């Protein structure tokens, strides 16, 4: 399968480990990710807090390019996905002509998780699994931008998405259900208001532990960063000793399918997942 790939800026920066696992998994799943030619930053949160026109124009340009490429486009970053969808709605709506960008709207914009949990992939996975993840007890953490607001994202199950759980079940684990899978982690406030991150993420740790989980699985690199980078700080602040590794869902696929480079990507996490994986007999 061939699809246009819009990595977004952070996948080339702080989330290179995510990018690497995506590339690795793509090859294992026979997906050809064709990077969008001449793509630009989507503007994420900075643009839409400063200038409405700029905020639409940045992602709209990418969509026009994607249309020229003639394929659906998939975005791993939840913020990029959200901004691309906003631009799509604007281009196809009454504001469309003002933007001055020609766009027919014949392609579908996917977030990576949705794309890789399509039926064709889920059906093909079980035969490819070589490593058992049976003993792992994760909670799925979807974050918010991939689902909300539903009028933008076109998601039907924005209150209780379950595709990540389905994926993990197919890979052989039993993800644990909990009430916080779409709660906000604080996203881009990580730099300006780390205290808010502390409050929100601390609650996520506590709730995950209460549910009986020992790790998170995420699909958004912003969420991964907030859950991973602040774990030590939050532990100190609340007098706890949290050990909750945060996996990208692509890393779990790669682990289950036996990709040799997986340890390399995992080594780039701040909270080292290796002790957990060793204890569970996965590595």
């Amino acid at each position, binding site marked *: 399968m061939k699809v246009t790939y819009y990595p977004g800026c952070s996948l080339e920066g702080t989330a290179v480990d995510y990018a690497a696992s995506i590339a690795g998994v793509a090859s294992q799943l026979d997906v050809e990710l064709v990077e969008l030619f001449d793509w630009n930053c989507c503007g994420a949160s900075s643009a839409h807090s400063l200038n409405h026109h700029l905020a639409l124009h940045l992602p709209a340009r990418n969509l026009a390019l994607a249309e020229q490429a003639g394929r659906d486009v998939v975005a791993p970053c939840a913020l990029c996905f959200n901004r691309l969808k906003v631009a799509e709605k604007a281009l196809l709506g009454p504001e469309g002509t003002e933007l001055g960008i020609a766009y027919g709207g014949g392609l579908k914009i996917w977030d990576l998780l949705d794309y890789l949990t399509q039926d064709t992939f889920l059906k093909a996975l079980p035969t490819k699994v070589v490593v058992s993840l049976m003993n792992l007890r994760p909670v799925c953490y979807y974050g918010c931008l991939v689902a909300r607001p539903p009028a933008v994202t076109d998601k039907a199950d924005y209150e209780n998405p379950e595709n990540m759980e389905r994926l993990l079940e197919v890979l052989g684990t039993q993800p644990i259900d909990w*009430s916080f899978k779409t709660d906000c982690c604080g996203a881009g406030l990580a730099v300006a208001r780390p205290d808010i991150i502390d409050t929100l993420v601390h609650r996520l740790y506590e709730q995950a532990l209460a549910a009986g989980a020992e790790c998170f699985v995420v699909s958004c690199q912003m969420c991964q960063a907030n859950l991973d980078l602040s774990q030590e700080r939050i532990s100190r602040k609340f007098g706890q000793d949290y050990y909750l590794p945060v996996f990208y869902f692509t890393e779990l696929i790669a682990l289950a399918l036996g990709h040799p480079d997986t340890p390399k990507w995992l080594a780039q996490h701040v909270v080292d997942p290796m002790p957990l994986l060793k204890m569970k007999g996965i590595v």
Partner: protein
Amino acid sequence: MAPNKSRGKPQQVGAVMVVGGGMSGIQAALDLAESGFYVYLVEKKPAIGGVMPMLDKTFPTNDCSMCTLAPKLVEVGRHLNIEILAPAEVAGISGNEGNYQVEVVQKARYIDPSRCIACGVCAEKCPKKVPNEFNQGLSARKAAYVLYPQAVPLKYAIDKEHCIYFRKGKCRACEKFCPTQAVDFSQTDRVLHLEVGSVILAPGFQVFDARKKPEYGYGRYPNVLTAMEFERMLSATGPTHAHIQRPSDAAEPEKIAWIQCVGSRDAAMGRPYCSSVCCMYATKQAIIAQEHDAKIRPTIFFIDLRAHGKGFERYYQAAKKLHQINYVRAMVSRVVQNPRTHDLALTYVDETNRIRTEEFNLVVLSVGMGVDPETAALAHKLGVMVSPSNFVSTGSFTPVSTSRPGVFACGSFTGPKDIPESVVQGSAAAASSARLLAPVRGTLQKEIAFPPEQDLADEPPRVGVFICHCGMNIGGVADIPSLVESARTIPDVEYVQENLFSCSQDSQNQMVQVIQEHRLNRVVVASCSPTTHGAMFQTMLRNAGLNKYLFEMANIRNQCTWVHQGEPEKATEKCRDLIRMGVAKARMLEPLKYLSVPVNKRVLVIGGGMAGMTSAVALADQGFEVHLVERLEHLGGNARKLHSTWRDERVQVMVDAMVAQVEQHPKITVHFLTMVTEVSGSVGNYKSKLSTGQEIEHGVVIIAVGAEPLRPEGEYLYKEHPNVLVSLELDQELARRTPRVKNAQAVGFIQCVGSRIPERPYCNRVCCSHSVENAIRLKRLNPDMEVYILYRDMRTYGEREPLYARARELGVLFFRYNVDDPPKVESEGDKIVIRFVDTDLQKPMELRVDLLTLATAIIPHQNAPLADLYKVHLDADGFFAEAHPKIRPVESTTTGIYMAGLCHFPKPIQESMAEALACASRASTILCRDTLELESITSRPIDENCDGCAFCVDACPFKAITLLEYMRDGNVKKTVEVNQVLCQGCGSCMATCPKKGIYVAGFTLEQLEAQVDAALGIS
């Protein structure tokens, strides 16, 4: 099939099809069958009953739902002129009003109903478990099943979808074990082509699927239930036998939360309307839950508390004050589960604007009503227009008529509503059909035939005793097996048995057989109250060939187990005594001759408003002579002051049309400037004297005298400031587009003036909608006008809810005030200043308006004189009291007297007219008969003992006794005579007579003495 007694092929058909066997359809079917039409009752499920059997208790009386419904179910099941087709569905329709051809697919139930005795063995042996839909999936049934224990018809069915034989070709255990070879796998669906004169659609509603709101965790968190699931949990026949327990661990919950408006008032979900009943049912569930377990602490999270029906506001206030139910005005956006305890945390903003999180052991979602896709498809197939929410589009003046002539609709299909309104609409639809088909009344009816009554001559008494469990009501308290044992030892008792539900059709049939087999000639049923099922059991005796007065009831429920729930041993002993007393009397019962009176088919309608006129025309169109008495010199009543309805229909046009119809109708005589001054007689034979001196003899009377608006003098500057109006006055000004309305820059409304206060603890139902309608009109007149509405709860119920949303969209501002600190109003020249504390902002506010409208209470007229004349009751607020708030909403306790419209309770025009039609329907069940059977439990003088002292004459409250003299052996003999029609068998005469000169048949002194002796254990 209906026997066709007409000669040749009639243009109209004297049969009606009712689609849907819920409460509304049942009422329509009964009314029609009782007034001369043959009825096909088509029901999708294998049994009728609809949603009502699933309910535990009903508000506002907290009566057991099944108890109020069962008599009607049994009546339908036994009725010669109602043919139940279940399971069956309507496939298509052709023809015109008066003559429709309907294609009905009668689905196979794979069990031959003529052989099935409902023994239950097939279900016992069936290996396939299926989630029990009646119990909302909380328990399992088998593929061979009966819908619910008291189902009518009480026949089993095999669920083809799950049956192992149909799916895999194996098993057939049911067939093997069925004692009557009733299982028939070769059954196929049959297509019936039925001819009817009209069709009534009563398909009911579907409960909102709470999985569509996953933020509440339904289907994910075990301790989140829908209200329907909780209702089953409260029920004795439910999955936990009325034990309230959490699904996750079967522990008893202490803190239970209800979340209102799930799937209602939710435009984003495509459900913008209000479901009308949920505020009340949540209140009821909270009260009943506490009755089950005193440690339960309920909290109800709501937006507006809608207690807008008769008796509802009192019920709600009692819930708050007496039962201490915690009402929190806050909407909960999601439910969070504690993974360790499975408790549920709800976060909300309280009334002091603080964010709180509270944990509950159980959460109940108050799910709303909707129209299911199959029903919507049926409407489409039949060419019936529906609203965007798929409710049938009806007009305010034709509340049960659809867009297709001859096809009527009733119940929740015309909009979310509660049981009494559904019953009213069922009767109204029946009246509409009857009006259409009056020329062919009686042409397709079958006639009833009881077996001949045995002549008992000098047979010794052979008493049968039937002891009822009544589910858990009696069986859960008293030791029934022990009662059976001791009953067997009572002399003259030949047969004793216990029943789970004596009122179920199956039990009735079985008891008839037992009576015949054991040659019983006296029957004692130890169960509930005679007012509940007495008449039904009496008919059972007639079906068994016994005089119906050879029957005695021992009330071991209402008078025993319901009262002594906490003392089961003592309760059992009391039951034992009551049964012994019942037998003591039963042995002495004698057969009584049946009495009947001829029916005068003339109708008296009191009140010439919309309700009175509607009843008059509905009956006159059927050929009955109607006299309409009106106090004023014109017809139209309060409707004359209204401009438009909430659907923007122009009222005066309709009033004029109706007035013309009445005044020109050959069968209606209107008496203007007239009131009723004297009344004598009883149902079938009333004599009412009018103030004009004329005497009218009539069979029934319909009271529709209306009500009046409260004039709140001294309140809110009414009558002190020229710019303070009441709603009806604003209506007039809007209609005439007066300058002060057109030029006003700001208009204010104050709701609940004189309502919902201790002096008048009822809600007036119409005012919130009325003010919202007027607010919208004002905004349309001048979009820049400021419009403010000060309210306590916004009660724009049903499909009026979108009006409330529309008003907000147009910029009408709504402020909530507290009844304990009401707004204060001051004059400021031409303007009026309103000062109040807004409860949401918790801040004092000041509004300056040019016009202030007070939404005031509707108060009853001085109804006591009229009530006294006809000996009917008024309720605590002075409105006419109906016989039963749920299932007999338009009848008084006295047969033959009906009520409709505002004199019963405040309501909008469409509901008044529906009630008026319902009165016509109920009345026609009497009017279409030539004679009416009377009670034989009346007093009889014993001439030898009577010396004419006449003490009894004064004692009789019904003035039924007269003193006579006659010559005997050359002397004057005084004696008394009793009018058997007026006599109500109260016994006052017998209690007064010092000479044993008068007795009440069926309650003789000897019988009563025998009961007392039995109670004391003397005999």
